[in-house]
């Protein structure tokens, strides 16, 4: 009896220091080639070499061998000739639970010295997990990929004061798509276009209806990757390097140098900046150089030159300059300018140099507050090209518009935000100022809901007066509903009968309805009413992404 007791004690002692086996349920999360991926790894003490029994539905048990591990998953190989079990297949792994003694023993085991590392790894952040290096695929090695969106848009505006009415109808549908590596050379093909019909129905005037189909983009680009030493794009596209020149029917090449310098140029025709996109009258060449200091674009600058001909006659000589400076994460200073060079053939401007466009922007953006100032100067250049509507010789000769805008915002709490803004403009015959202040509070009734109120005042050359706006936004599931009411009292001055004051009100509603992950449908409507006004607009926007 005593002997038996001693034997039993020894058994218990041995059992307590020896590893224990345990059966754990696993599941296949993926299957490819000759491997399956399991939903457990080291977290259940699975080890390389362990065998796992899988029970695919409708088939017999198969046994796979663990080949590699992560903390929460494992890759196991299926025996040759055995069909891959489907994702979701359940299984059992018999694992050995490591004892404290074994753990201590393993920890005390000496580790042989690793041979010297020959591969230079990129610096590693000790705060981040150490990963197996991954290797990228060159663009031409990647599968073809198509992304894009199709949209449809409709809007009906009606002014129905008194017995007269005016109707404006606009319908648009279009497609924009990027295709990566369709030809297997790592290129990107981009296409965008739309069809639109618009109708204008006015009393006492013959109705106008017109349809236009246009191609906004149709280009093939090579070397679009940031590291590519050469980039080339041909077709109809907007130059990513010199967007100031507008749409181009032609080609552009860019050479990218180490240190952030890019040099390039292009040539082609410049479609008119109107929906018909008429092209062919204006051709030209352009060249550019730009520099980006680092990944944060702490400093970037670009300069470009464009020379165009209109129906064979010399037209525009343009210099473009652009600079960005970000002294810190919070501050950014941007500026871009266009300077036109006029020769003796420019009859209105005469020979000389003119700063045609200048836009400067200073922004401060911290976590809870921000501010910005934007100033711009615009003059109408003398062009043979049809680029501006309603252009008169006086406007080209003397027209100039200067604007300045100041804004600031403050988020005292995650829910509250306050904004102020002031704008001023001045041109040859008028000037004006407007100021506004608004407050928004989020998550009032539910997550995603918000209420906002704003007050504004404008002093323009046509009208002046105060106004206020309030909106309410609420989410119903994925849908978002927004209601807005606006009141504006304005005085028209300089009328022959003296100043007259009017009140305008408007109410609007919009519903944004995501349907699944790819389809969005928006409906909106607005009605204006008040003194001398009775009008409404209704519309929809539908977008399907692929």
């Amino acid at each position, binding site marked *: 009896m005593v002997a038996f007791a001693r034997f039993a004690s020894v058994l218990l002692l041995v059992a307590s220091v020896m590893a224990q086996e345990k059966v754990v349920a696993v599941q296949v999360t993926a299957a490819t080639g000759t*491997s399956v991926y399991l939903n457990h790894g080291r977290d259940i003490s699975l080890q390389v070499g362990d065998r796992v029994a899988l029970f695919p539905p409708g088939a017999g048990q198969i046994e796979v061998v663990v080949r590699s591990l992560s903390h929460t998953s494992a890759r196991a190989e299926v025996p040759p000739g055995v069909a891959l079990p489907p994702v979701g297949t359940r299984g059992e792994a018999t694992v050995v639970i490591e004892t404290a003694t074994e753990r201590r023993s393993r920890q005390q085991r000496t580790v042989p010295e690793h041979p010297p590392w020959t591969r230079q790894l990129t610096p590693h952040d000790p705060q981040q997990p150490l990963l197996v290096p991954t*290797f990228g695929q060159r663009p031409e090695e990647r599968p073809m990929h198509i992304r894009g969106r199709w949209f449809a848009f409709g809007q009906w505006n009606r002014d129905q004061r008194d017995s007269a009415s005016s109707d404006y109808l606009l319908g648009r549908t279009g497609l924009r798509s990027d295709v990566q590596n369709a030809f297997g050379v790592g290129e990107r093909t981009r296409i965008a276009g739309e069809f639109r019909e618009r109708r204008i129905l006015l009393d006492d005037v013959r109705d106008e209806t017109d349809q236009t189909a246009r191609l906004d983009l149709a280009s093939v680009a090579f070397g679009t990757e940031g590291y590519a030493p050469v980039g080339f794009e041909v077709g109809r596209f907007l130059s990513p390097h010199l967007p100031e020149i507008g749409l181009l029917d032609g080609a552009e090449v860019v050479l990218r140098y180490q240190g952030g310098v890019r040099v390039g140029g292009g040539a082609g025709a410049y479609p008119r900046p*109107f*929906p018909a996109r008429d092209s062919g009258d204006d051709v030209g060449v352009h060249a550019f150089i730009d520099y*980006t200091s680092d*990944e944060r674009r702490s400093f970037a600058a670009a300069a470009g030159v464009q020379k165009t001909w209109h129906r064979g006659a010399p037209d525009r000589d343009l210099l473009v300059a652009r600079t960005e400076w970000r002294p810190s994460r919070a501050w950014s200073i941007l500026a871009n300018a266009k300077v036109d060079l006029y020769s003796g053939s420019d009859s209105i401007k005469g020979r000389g140099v003119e700063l045609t466009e200048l*836009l400067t922007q200073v922004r401060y953006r911290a976590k809870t507050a921000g501010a910005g100032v934007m100033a711009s100067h615009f003059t109408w250049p003398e062009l043979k090209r049809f680029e501006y509507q309603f252009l008169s010789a006086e406007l080209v000769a003397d027209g100039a518009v200067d604007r300045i805008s100041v804004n600031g915002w403050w988020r005292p709490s995650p829910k509250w935000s306050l904004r102020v803004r002031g704008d001023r403009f001045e041109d040859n015959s008028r000037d004006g100022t407007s100021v506004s202040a608004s407050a928004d509070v989020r998550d009032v009734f539910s997550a995603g809901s918000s209420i906002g109120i704003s007050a504004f005042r404008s002093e323009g050359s046509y009208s002046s007066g105060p106004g206020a706006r309030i909106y309410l936004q609420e989410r119903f599931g994925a849908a978002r509903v927004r209601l807005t009411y606006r009141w504006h009292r304005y005085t028209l001055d300089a009328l022959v009968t003296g100043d*007259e004051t009017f009140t305008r009100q408007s109410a609007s509603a919009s519903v944004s309805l995501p349907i699944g992950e790819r389809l969005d449908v*928006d409906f909106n409507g607005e009605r204006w009413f008040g003194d001398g006004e009775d009008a409404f607009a209704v519309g929809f926007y539908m977008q399907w992404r692929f």
Partner: protein
Amino acid sequence: MANEKQRSPRRYGRLVMAVWLLAVACVNFVPRQGWDQDTGPVVPHDSFPADCSLCHVGGDWHTIKPDFVYDHEAETGVPLDGAHENAACLLCHNDRGPVAQYAARGCGGCHADPHLTRLGANCSDCHEERSWYPRAAIAEHDRTRFPLIGAHAAVACFRCHAGAEVGNFAGAPADCRDCHGADYARTAVPNHTAVGFSRQCRECHLPTGWQPARFDHPGSFPLSLGHGGLTCAACHTTPNVFTGLSSDCATCHTDEYTAAMDPSHPAAGFDLQCEACHDTRTFSRALWQHPAGFELTFGHAGRNCGECHTGQVYVGTQSDCASCHLPEFQAATAPPHVSLGFSQDCEQCHDTRSWGSGNWDHQFPINGGDHGGLDCFDCHNNPANRQLFSCIDCHEHTESQTNDDHDEVTGYTYTTAGCYSCHPTGDN
């Protein structure tokens, strides 16, 4: 000019040469960028969990698991709003370069700017993140040079900004004529072009509608009162001729003059200068002043002319009262004017306010005292001549009594004349 033409190609030649030299220098001396084998996958995975199966389906690194969920805001501090919520990762995280480089530029880092950088970098000032549809465009337009007040609110953007659909809003002038030139040109009543009206629509029109127009008519003929609100053609009858029109009333109002029946202006020989009697408020109320000496006061005011000027004869009308009021005179019974022999000069007793009781001042006091309340005929008791009166026929005192009372009065006689000579007011 010739020199300019000669210099111009030279200048461009130098420019082209400079650009070419720069290009050559870059090509030869600055190393080009290139493919880096260590670049890794398109999206840098340095900070990702080691468990690939969290994101990828097995067997295809290019396909993300259908039930993959990633809280971008929680993980990176950058919220993905609007359409960005469901955007594919690779739309932003691709090998165009580090995403931080593009994020630094804001929207413009990924989205081509159809406005050609003219409107600044704050896309969200105008656009929704879900659909790019401009947010509160009408309201925000108040900040521009042309607030969309009145009828402009419902006008489609493309009506004024022909390039709106392709993002071209630049340089749109803000003068009325720039958009309404066609309206100006086609307006036929009046023909603005022919007349040479101002092209600043706001000088005559409100932004709430073309009508009513508020034309600043020449100061010599202000369109006040009844002339206000008329169409131009009401006066300027020759199409699109707005000059040389006489400002004489008769130019337009001859018909009214001829048709006027009360009084008949032609018959009366009235002057064609309407303003002599009328203002521009209305023709139905003349402001004509009746000739001095016969002011149309009180009861004479507001009368039809024909009541006095019968037979449309306005000259030679007698101004004596009886010319018109003889019937009233003859019909008067209290007192009977005729029998009392009253004067036909009514104004001796009446004014023009109303006939009333007359305000004739009885020479002998009869409004009170001993002689108050008597009937006319008590004293004027001679039916043959009511102008005569008698003191002794109605007097309460008898002759004997009266004689006794006057026995010491020298020259006393018991006759009406005797009484009246000593007692003209009836007092003792």
